[in-house]
C-alpha cells in the first residue's frame, strides 16, 4: 500500500522550485483580500471562494494524465506541469514565502509562482492580463 516519498526525486531532472519572491505576486499578496476576510465581511457562508473549482480544474488540466502515473512514467512534454512536481513546489513555497497565506489562496499563489519560474508564462504578460481582467470585471 505504500509509495516512496522519494518518487519525485527518483527522476534525476527534477529541479527544486526557485523560492525567490516574484514582484507581481508580492503585490497581489499585499493588496489582495483573502476569501475568509471577504466572506466574514459580507456574511457569506460558503467556505471556499467561487474560483477554487476553476483553479482545481486548471491544475488538473495542466497535469494531463500525470496525476495517475508514477513520476518516472511521465513522458517529458506530455503535459504542461506534472501533478507531483506542482505539489512538491507547492509544499516548498507553502513552507517558505507563502507560509502565512491561507488556503486556497496559497494554492493559487504557488501555481502562479511555479508557472512563472518554470517558464510556462511570463511575469510581464501575467501583469498585462491581470490588468485586462480587472478592467473587465470592474466594468459596468
Amino acid at each position, binding site marked *: *500500500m*505504500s*509509495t516512496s516519498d*522519494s518518487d*519525485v*526525486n527518483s527522476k534525476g531532472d*527534477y529541479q*527544486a522550485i526557485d523560492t525567490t519572491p516574484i514582484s507581481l505576486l508580492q503585490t*497581489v499578496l499585499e*493588496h*489582495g*483580500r*483573502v*476569501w475568509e476576510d*471577504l*466572506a466574514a*465581511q*459580507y*456574511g*457569506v457562508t460558503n467556505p471556499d*471562494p*467561487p*474560483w477554487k*473549482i*476553476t*483553479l*482545481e*480544474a*486548471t491544475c488538473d*488540466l*495542466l497535469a*494531463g*494524465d500525470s496525476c*495517475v*502515473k508514477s513520476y518516472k512514467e511521465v513522458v517529458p512534454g506530455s503535459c*504542461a506541469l506534472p501533478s*507531483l512536481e506542482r*505539489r*512538491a513546489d507547492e*509544499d*516548498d513555497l*507553502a*513552507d517558505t514565502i507563502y*507560509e502565512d497565506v491561507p*488556503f486556497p*489562496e496559497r494554492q*493559487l*499563489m504557488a*501555481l*502562479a509562482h511555479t*508557472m512563472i519560474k518554470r517558464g*510556462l*508564462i511570463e511575469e510581464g*504578460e*501575467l501583469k498585462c*492580463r*491581470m490588468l485586462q*481582467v480587472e478592467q473587465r*470585471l*470592474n466594468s459596468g
Partner: protein
Amino acid sequence: MSDHDHSHKPAPMVDEVSDFEILEMAVRELAIDKGLFSQEDHRVWTEYVHTLGPVPAARLVAKAWLDPEYKKLAAADGVEASKAVGVDWVTSPPTQFGTPSDYCNLRVLEDTPKLKHVVVCSLCSCYPRPILGQSPEWYRTPNYRRRLVRWPRQVLSEFGLQLPPEVEVRVADSNQKTRYIVMPVRPEGTEGWTEDQLTEIVTRDCLIGVAVPKPGITSNAKRPIRKAIHPVQHDHDH
C-alpha cells in the same frame, strides 16, 4: 412578467473583486492562449468537478451495512460497487483530456472492532475524488501527510479519535494507481435505520478514517490547520 418570487431575501454575496480572483482568471486565460489546454476542456472538467462530493461514498458504506452481499462486493471490487451509487470510474469523468483507466482502482477498507483504517497520500494529495469530492485542506498539508504515517495514533487523537491499544491502526497510502475509502464499523444505536439515515452519519472524515460515525453527527468537525513544529525536510531537497 416574471412569476418568480422576489419577496425573499437574497443570499449574501461578496460584492467586490479580489486580486486573487483576478489572478486565477488571468493564469487560466494565459494557459488557454498558450494552448496548454482548451477553454472547452476546462469548462467540461469544471462542470464535472462541481458534481463531485462525499455522498456517493457515504451511500456505498450505508448500503454495505444493510446488505451483506453488497458488502462483500464492496470489499472485493470497489469500482464495481461504486456503480450502485451512481459512480462509474471509467465513464463518469470526462475523457476528452485523458483520464486513463488505471485511475480506476478504488479499494474499500473495512474496519472491524479490532482494526481501524485511515487514508493518506504521503507523497502529494491523491484522493478518490470521483466518489468523495475534493480533499479537505488538512489532507493536503505536509503536517498530516508526514506525521500520520509515523504516529497515526497521535494524529488520530488530535482529530478527537482516541483508540484503545488493542485496536490495530492501518494506514493506507494512496498513490497514482490506487485510491481508498474507509468503511467504518456501523455504530450502535442505528438499528432499524434506513439507508438515507445511515448515509447522513457517514461523513467525509469517517470515509478518510479520521473519525467514526455516530448517531446525531452529520458534519465534519472544524479542524485548525497547524504547521509542523519541526518540519521534515522534503526528500528532493536532500
